[in-house]
């Protein structure tokens, strides 16, 4: 494997400043995406997936603080990019599909207005050309009657259609990396599959890099090359999708996979006792230790380092240290 590295997140620490103090969410995230590679990120809600994704584009909320770490895009540190470089990255290189299409589209603007703005700032096109491009994208996203959609306000569209609009946005131009942050979580069950199929087939077709964040483990398993498992702001296990799913190493991953049928939107099944930790006072050492059945003394003291247990399959757990 000597593929070209597209994106590399190194030891990312991100926190949020609130009136209750600073919450230490990301605790040294490492993640790599190669060119044309499809990468999955799984983990329960609140584990820091969205924060990681937003860090890539530097669109974190204003109270977020990046304490440590680097994000390299084609070798260039995104976190140190200047305004124009950053805009270029956002306009041409990486696009993102948000979790909730309803809140992601400004309700007071027509779909077309938003799309035109985006296209015009990205490609400096005339209105006519920009509109053509937008309509093409909408058509690509399998929206029937793109003209009508273009001329509609978001509230006039169904949830599925809204997400297709977001997908269309993400597909405009030739992107190198598409981040899909739980693109189907907020959709009706019947629509989920449709939208997912559309997305996966488009990604395959275009052969772009893809980060697929999801709680739908099945969908991830089928559609990605490699998978990262995230818990409480740490990547605790990663490797080729096939290997991770068939041979989960980390106790958390094991539990997570066990309770697949019970995995629902927000509530965690009884499969894992306890809750996601309090980020204001995160547990020392391995953040999973209070919930872990195999906890060792050293787990409370230091953050375990990643170990390559089998080829390209890593786990950060003291149980696998030799």
């Amino acid at each position: 494997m000597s593929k070209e590295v597209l994106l590399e997140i190194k030891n990312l620490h991100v926190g949020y400043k609130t009136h209750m103090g600073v919450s230490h969410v990301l605790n040294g995230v490492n993640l790599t995406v190669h060119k044309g590679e499809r990468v999955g990120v799984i983990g329960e809600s609140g584990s820091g997936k969205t924060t990681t994704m937003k860090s890539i584009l530097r669109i974190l909320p204003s109270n977020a603080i990046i304490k440590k770490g680097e994000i390299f895009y084609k070798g260039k540190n995104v976190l140190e990019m200047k305004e124009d470089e950053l805009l270029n990255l956002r306009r041409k290189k990486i696009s993102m599909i948000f979790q909730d299409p309803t809140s992601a589209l400004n309700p007071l603007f027509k779909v077309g207005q938003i799309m035109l703005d985006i296209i015009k700032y990205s490609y400096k096109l005339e209105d006519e050309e920009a509109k053509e491009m937008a309509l093409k994208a909408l058509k690509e996203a399998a929206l029937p009657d793109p003209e009508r959609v273009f001329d509609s306000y978001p509230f006039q569209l169904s949830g599925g259609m809204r997400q297709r609009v977001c997908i269309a946005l993400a597909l405009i131009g030739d992107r190198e990396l598409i981040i899909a942050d739980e693109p189907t979580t907020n959709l009706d069950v019947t629509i989920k599959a449709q939208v997912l199929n559309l997305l996966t087939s488009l990604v395959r077709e275009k052969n772009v890099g893809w980060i697929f964040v999801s709680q739908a483990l099945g969908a991830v398993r089928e559609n990605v090359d490699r998978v990262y498992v995230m818990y409480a702001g740490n990547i605790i296990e990663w490797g080729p999708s096939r290997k991770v799913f068939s041979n989960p190493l980390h106790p958390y991953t094991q539990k997570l996979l066990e309770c697949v049928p019970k995995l629902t939107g927000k509530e965690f099944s009884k499969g894992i006792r306890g809750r996601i930790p309090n980020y204001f006072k995160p547990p020392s050492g391995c953040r999973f230790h209070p919930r872990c059945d195999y906890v060792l003394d050293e787990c409370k003291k230091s953050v375990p380092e990643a170990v390559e247990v089998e080829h390209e399959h890593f786990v950060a757990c003291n149980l696998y240290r030799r």
Partner: protein
Amino acid sequence: MRAIWKYIWKRVLYVIPTLVGLSILIFILSRVLPGDPALMAAGPNAPKWVVEQIRHQLRLDKPLWEQYYYWLVDLFHGDLGYSTYTKRSVTADVIEYLPASLQLIFMAALFEIGGALALGIIAGRYAYRLPDNIVRVIAYIGISVPSFVWGLLFQLVFASLIPLFPTHGMYSYGTVPPPRVTGFSLIDALIAGQFDTFVDILWHMVLPAFALSLGAMAQDARIIRAGMVENTEKEHVSLVRAYGIPERVIFSKYILKPSLVPAVTVMGMDIASLLGNAFMVELIFQWPGFSRYGINVMLNKDINGIVAVVLVIGILFAIANIIVDVVVAYLDPRIGRRSQ
């Protein structure tokens, strides 16, 4: 566009019964509450037969429902009854005094909108920073200090300490009022080509309009600021940011517009405060307007005058609210169209 008209029409239809109810309410109150308006109108030394004559003229010798019936009939003929205070038709009074008040309230509304936008945007842009805190203090002061206190404060400051703005009336001494065409002295001055007079009137309007607008301005500034802070963290802002739209555009378009909707929505209430506070402010600044007339008819128990004042203000308030709703519907497409 058709949808908007239909929407307005619906609002008008809804408000008419309310206004009729209002007229009945104030009509009955003015006739039923103790106190003899005829006696008051006749003046202190009038003989009894004069009082009776006025009572007859005011139809106070008839049953209440009949009085209301004739009042309605007259209303449809454009006659609001005889004012015992000005000794002429209330309609003439309304025509004479209303434009001055509208002019003042309009100016105050301009100040309010301008000031609220400026303060709100500054505070929203620099949320949690020094400008935000300054605006917050200004806003709380604006909300807490009643308009009549502002009025008196301005009187105190500008009457003698810094005589930069006039503190009473509509014209300076020596200014010739323009011939009355529309009744709006500003417009009349322009029609007559008296630019000096136009400026003079504006100059006289500054303090009362400002005193009138401060409370509402503060309220609105806070709402705009809150809206901006809230919208800044919205996902739709993250989206446009993620696609490389410049911050300047995000701010002035994708954050500002949704922040204006709640501010415009509360403008209905602001107009209520403008219309109400105008009573005190016109009194303080001796503004020759409808509200000052209102106070005088009230203090003189001029029942037809009181009914007319309440009703006219009710109508103005209703119109203002409809305008506000239309603006909101224009800003927020969800509102006008949902009713379809």
